């Protein structure tokens, strides 16, 4: 009887995990953050399955490069120029420093090339990075 229950449990868990194994992985440029507490089994594109038990916090960027395709003057192999700022506080409170604060300013592909070649854009990216640094310095305990 107990063995039957275990088998059913294994079948149910297997059924839930099957999508993870079977789902196709498509190349996507993506940025992600995650906060998990408990049991988590997940998979991101081009990565192996990740199993977490307990607490985990992740900030990740996935920048795939096309296979056998070099950048040209009119096509780009996924240049990315950007600034990212992520700040976590208590997710269940509403205070000024609680919750998730996210600020992203970035350019991809030909836009990244254009931004890198523009003085205004370079200044904007520099100012964004400076603002993040100031914020980091002022929130340090």
């Amino acid at each position, binding site marked *: 009887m107990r063995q039957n229950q275990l088998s059913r449990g294994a079948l149910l868990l297997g059924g839930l995990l099957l999508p*993870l194994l079977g789902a196709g992985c498509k190349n996507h440029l993506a940025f992600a953050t*995650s906060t*998990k507490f408990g049991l988590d*089994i997940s998979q*991101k594109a081009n990565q192996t399955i990740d199993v977490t038990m307990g607490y985990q916090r992740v900030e990740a960027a996935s920048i795939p490069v096309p296979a056998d395709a070099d950048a040209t003057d009119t096509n*780009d192999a996924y240049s990315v120029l950007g600034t990212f700022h992520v700040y976590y506080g208590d997710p269940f409170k509403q205070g000024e420093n609680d919750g998730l604060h996210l600020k*992203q300013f970035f350019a991809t592909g030909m*836009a990244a090339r*254009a931004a890198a070649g523009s003085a205004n854009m370079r200044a904007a990216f520099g100012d964004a990075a400076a603002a993040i640094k100031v*914020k980091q310095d002022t929130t340090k305990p």
Partner: protein
Amino acid sequence: VSTGWLIFAGCLALLPLVSGCVWRTQEADHLIGPAFYRLSQTAPGQADIVQTLHVPLLLEGGRQWGLSLGVVKRDAIVPGHPPQTPQPPPSSPPYGILTGVEPRKWHFTSVYFRAPLRETPLFIRRTVIGTQGGGGVEQRAFSLGYSSVTATWPREHALHELEFDSRHPLEAKAVVTPAADMETTPTPAPRNQ
């Protein structure tokens, strides 16, 4: 018939009443069954934000499918485009049966609500307290406990500006400027954090 079976049959009969379903497509999220939702004020050049809250059971299909048990909160942000650049065609207005569509207010739908998406969301935040399992474009995961995941899917060859504060999700800012229009668009001024 034992009491256990009666309770089980009763729970089974009540299941459709508490089960929320969502069918996700590229053009819209179709909410079928009980769900809470909130929409941002639509304005030209600004992001459209759709917040949904499902308790206690959620079945999903379409681009993202799975089963969740507990509290599932999802914020989806469709980016705006600078006014100087070509605008994507406007989406059809939101539509609901026996429910409201007034922006910035929480509404409850028990039958059907359609949240249109002008284009694929740039940013999605999904918070689950309970258990979930499923797969699709948003994530492939099984979790038990607390899980809060955000994902940003940048457009190719474009400049992106995204600001999100989970305490005020409807105030989020998301603007995408295609590379071809960068010269005609003023350089975004980074705001203080």
